[in-house]
């Protein structure tokens, strides 16, 4: 990556706006003044690097990384895919962190008071770095839906939170992966905040018979695309 073009801008057809009336919490937390354009410098095209040695062996296996007295309850699953740039190239060595509710729809977070059981053998967080081809893989438990106070009888569709850095500070992305065939997606204000239907569909993982392991776990495939190289500007 050279400084000349920096990274491509955030795609405004893809990313939600700051303000989305149906998602109530945006009302007071959405910046309202226009963003100030910032041509990329060394400050934007550099970013943190996390070595493979920063990880423990079970960090990518949420069914094993918090076991106290047995296996976590719920449907075991694998989610795997590639981290790509907008040219379709794999992004190697990038940090991926995930967190999620347990099978009953309960987060381990101290503020989650949903009346559903905590699983003593499930913490719900993991991390890995992509390999040389940009591939990642987690083993986990399929998360449950849970209620939230946004509107009457509101339920979040089951999802896994993903946090990625990519090759620079401006490729940072935090998002959520959803599950195919979920009727809650159509009425979820957070999912529906994404302007383009095609962009919404890309947040839904695909059930994959190839990833599914016999007698063991269902498999899902989900690729993540980060900002790629920007156009070279007309002036230096």
């Amino acid at each position: 990556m050279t400084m000349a073009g920096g990274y491509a801008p955030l795609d405004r057809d893809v990313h939600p706006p700051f303000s989305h009336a149906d998602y109530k919490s945006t009302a007071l937390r959405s910046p309202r003044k226009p963003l100030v354009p910032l041509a990329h410098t060394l400050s934007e095209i550099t970013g943190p690097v996390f070595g493979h040695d920063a990880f423990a062996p079970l960090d990518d296996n949420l069914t094993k990384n918090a076991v106290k007295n047995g296996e976590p309850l719920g449907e075991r699953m694998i989610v795997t895919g590639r981290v790509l740039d907008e040219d379709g190239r794999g992004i190697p060595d990038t940090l991926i962190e995930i967190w999620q509710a347990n099978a009953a729809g309960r987060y381990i977070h101290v503020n989650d008071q949903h009346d559903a059981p905590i699983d003593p053998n499930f913490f719900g967080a993991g991390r890995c770095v992509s390999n040389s081809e940009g591939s990642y893989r987690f083993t986990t438990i399929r998360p449950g839906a849970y209620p939230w106070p946004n509107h009457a009888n509101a339920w979040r569709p089951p999802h896994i939170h993903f946090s990625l850095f990519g090759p620079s500070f401006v490729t940072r992305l935090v998002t959520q992966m959803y599950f195919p065939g979920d009727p809650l997606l159509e009425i979820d204000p957070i999912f529906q905040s994404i302007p383009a239907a095609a962009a919404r569909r890309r947040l839904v993982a695909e059930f994959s018979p190839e990833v599914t392991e016999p007698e063991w776990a269902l498999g899902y495939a989900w690729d993540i695309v980060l900002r790629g190289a920007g156009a070279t500007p007309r002036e230096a």
Partner: protein
Amino acid sequence: MPKQTASQTIGPYFAYGLTPEAYGRAGICGNVLAGADTAGGELIRVEGRVLDGGADPVDDALIEIWQANAAGRYNHSADARGEVALDEAFSGIGRCATDAEGRFWFETVKPGAVPGRGNTLQAPHINVVVMARGMLLHAFTRIYFSDENTANANDPVLESVEEARRPTLIAAREDSAKGPVFRFEIRLQGDGETVFFAA
């Protein structure tokens, strides 16, 4: 060609995954970037609060910072300037979740100046990403320093911001017995809304 993956909010429950120290687990990075053993540079503390459009504290935000070392070199392959000293022990990345009063803090070194576009020099600054429940997309801002008036006056990015809003990007220095503290408020909306960049 593939299209970008859409952003979604970080939500209210990220802490046990991203800043899990309170849960007895090691995080990937924290809010102490430098200490007495850090080679070179002025040790500083950056403190602030995140406030919403009603001026109420945001108690579930995540602030991430990325900065050059005291010499002005980023610890990343895209900064290949051999003439500026690299400090391998200084990663430049920090992360802090806000507390019940919306507060965050970092202990770090004051970064050196880094080149801008063309032949310009940027004033010392820390790059910031703000994420929170109620934010569907992360927001980029920068922390500049109030004791760098001359460098700030010549900074091309500050210059691109309308003058009345520039103060939202400048952390105020307060000297304490423990060393310099730079105070930086992040106002997501309303009076004194922080300048956010289309970075």
